[in-house]
C-alpha cells in the first residue's frame, strides 16, 4: 500500500505530469518515425538534424525569438538541405552533412558560453529537462504526434514502396522526392518538439533503438510500425517514473531502458532468427 502510494507520488506534481505526457507521446512518435530511419539507413540524419536544431535553439534563445519558430525554421531548412545533398548521392555527402550540422552545434555551444543568461534554456535543450516542460510543449508534441500518425496512415504504401524500392516506386508514379521531403520534415518536427524533454544528445538514440528492437521481433513491416511506437512509448513512460524515484536524468534513464529492451530482444530473437539479426545491417 505504502509502496503504491510511493509510485504515485510524482503524479502530484504538475511538472511531472506534463513531462510524462510529452515523453510518452515523444516515445511513440520517435518509435514510429524510427522505423523509416533505420530501414532507410538514415540514423546519421537523425543525429545530424538534432545537432543542427540545437544551433537554431541556441540562437533563438539568445535573440529571444520563440523556440518553436527559431529552431523550427532552422530544423526544417537543414532537413531539406540534408535531403538535397543525400539525394544527389555525391561522394562525401555525409561528410558535408557532418560539417554543417556539427558547425551548427558548435555555434549553439559558443552562444551558450557567450551569453550566460540564455544558457539555462540551452542546457535544457542539450540534455533535456522535465522541469522545463510547459503546456505549450504538450500541445506541440500532441500536434506533431497526430500529424505523424496521419502521414504514416495516409501515405503508408507510398512510404513503404519508396523505402523498399526507390527506383520502382518512381516508375509506379510515386513521387519519391515528395515522400522523402515529407519524411524529413516530420523527423525535423519530431526532433523540434521532443528536444526539450529528451535533449539533443540522446534524441537520435530514441529514433533508432526502439525501431531496431522492433525489427528483431518481426519480419512484417506493418507489425513493426505497431511494435516500435509501443516500445518507444512504454520505455519513455517507465523511464520517466524510474528517473523520479532513482533521481537520475530522465533522458538518460529512458535511453538506458531502451538499450536494455534492445539487449533482451537481441538475446531472445538472436538465437532464433538469424535473418532478423542480419537486418541490423540497416543501422
Amino acid at each position, binding site marked *: 500500500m505504502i509502496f503504491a502510494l510511493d509510485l504515485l507520488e510524482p503524479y502530484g506534481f504538475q511538472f511531472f505530469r506534463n513531462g510524462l505526457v510529452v515523453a510518452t507521446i515523444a516515445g511513440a512518435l520517435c518509435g514510429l518515425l524510427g522505423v523509416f530511419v533505420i530501414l532507410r539507413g538514415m540514423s546519421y540524419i537523425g543525429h545530424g538534424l538534432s545537432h543542427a536544431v540545437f544551433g537554431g535553439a541556441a540562437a533563438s534563445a539568445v535573440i529571444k525569438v520563440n523556440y518553436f519558430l527559431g529552431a523550427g525554421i532552422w530544423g526544417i531548412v537543414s532537413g531539406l538541405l540534408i535531403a538535397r545533398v543525400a539525394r544527389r548521392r555525391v561522394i562525401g555527402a555525409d561528410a558535408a552533412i557532418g560539417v554543417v550540422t556539427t558547425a551548427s552545434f558548435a555555434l549553439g555551444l559558443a552562444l551558450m558560453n557567450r551569453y550566460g543568461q540564455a544558457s539555462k534554456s540551452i542546457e535544457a535543450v542539450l540534455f533535456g529537462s522535465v522541469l522545463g516542460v510547459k503546456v505549450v510543449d504538450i500541445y506541440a508534441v500532441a500536434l506533431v504526434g497526430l500529424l505523424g500518425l496521419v502521414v504514416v*496512415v495516409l501515405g*503508408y*504504401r507510398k512510404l513503404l*514502396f519508396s523505402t*523498399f524500392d526507390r527506383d520502382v516506386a*518512381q*516508375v*509506379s508514379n510515386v513521387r519519391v522526392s515528395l515522400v522523402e521531403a515529407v519524411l524529413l520534415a516530420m523527423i525535423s518536427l519530431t526532433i523540434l518538439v521532443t528536444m526539450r524533454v529528451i535533449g539533443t544528445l540522446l534524441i537520435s538514440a530514441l529514433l533508432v533503438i526502439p525501431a531496431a528492437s522492433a525489427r528483431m521481433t518481426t519480419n512484417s513491416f506493418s507489425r513493426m510500425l505497431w511494435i516500435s511506437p509501443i516500445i518507444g512509448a512504454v520505455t519513455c513512460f517507465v523511464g520517466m517514473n524510474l528517473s523520479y524515484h532513482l533521481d537520475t536524468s530522465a533522458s538518460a534513464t529512458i535511453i538506458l531502458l531502451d538499450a536494455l529492451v534492445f539487449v533482451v530482444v537481441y538475446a531472445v530473437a538472436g538465437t532464433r532468427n538469424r535473418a532478423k539479426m542480419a537486418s541490423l545491417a540497416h543501422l
Partner: protein
Amino acid sequence: MRRSILNKTDTPLIVCEHVSCTYGNAPVLHDVYLKINRREFVGIVGPSGSGKTTLLKAIIGSQPVAHGSITIEPQLTIGYVPQVETVDWYFPVTVEEVIVMTRAKTKWWPQITTAERKAVREVLEKLGIADVAHRHIRELSGGQQQRVFLARAMFCQPDILVLDEPTAGVDVRTRHEILHLLADLHEGGLTILLTTHDLNGLAAHLPRLVCFNKTVLADGNPRDVLTSQILEATYGAPMEVLEHGGMPLVIDHGRVAMRGEGK
C-alpha cells in the same frame, strides 16, 4: 480497357535516340539507339559493367539522360523487375506486402483489402507460387524470389515488362521455368524487354537480341547476331559459335586464352 490497344503491333512503345548517360565523369552509355515495338520480346546481352542496368533505368526514368532522348508512349504502364542482387532481402516485408505496395491508392486505412488479397493470390497462382503469400522475402528460394518480383510487376497489369537479369543466380530448371513463363506472357500479348548475360540458356531462345556494350553493337535475330565477330566486339574476348540442333551455341575461349597467355 488497356488490353484492347495491344492489337496494334507496330507502334513503338519505347524509342531511345542518341542516348548517353554518365556517372560523374565516367560515360556509361554512349549514343544508344533502340526501338521497342509493341508485342516484341527483346533481350539485351553484354558483359557485366557494360551498362545494361543503366539503360533499363534510363528507360524507366530513374536514371537521368545526359544527351539524346527517350520517348515513351504516353500512358504506357511499365512493370519493372529489378536485378535480385539489388533487392534488400532483409527488409521486413512479406510477399503479399511486396506485391500490394504497388497500389499506392488506398482507402484512408491502408490495410490490405479482401479484393486485393484475392488479386495477389491470382497473380501468385499464375506464376506457380500460390503458397508463399505470407512468407518473408528472405525465406524464399532464388526462383521464388525472382517470381515474386515478376508478380509485383504483373500486379499493375503492365503493357511492357522490363526485367534485369531474370535468370541470374537460378538453377537450370528454374531458368527453363522462367523462360517458359515469359514466353507464355509474351504469347498472351505482353511486350518484354530483358537483359541477360546467359547467351545459350536464355538469349539464343529469344526472337530479337541486342548486343550491347555502352552502345548497341548489333540488333536482330539471334542467328544473325550471335556470331563470333559480334560477340568478340561485345565481350572483348574470343568467342566461337557452333550450331547445335538448329540453334547457335556460344563457346567462350576464356580458358584457352588463359592457357595461351601462360606460355
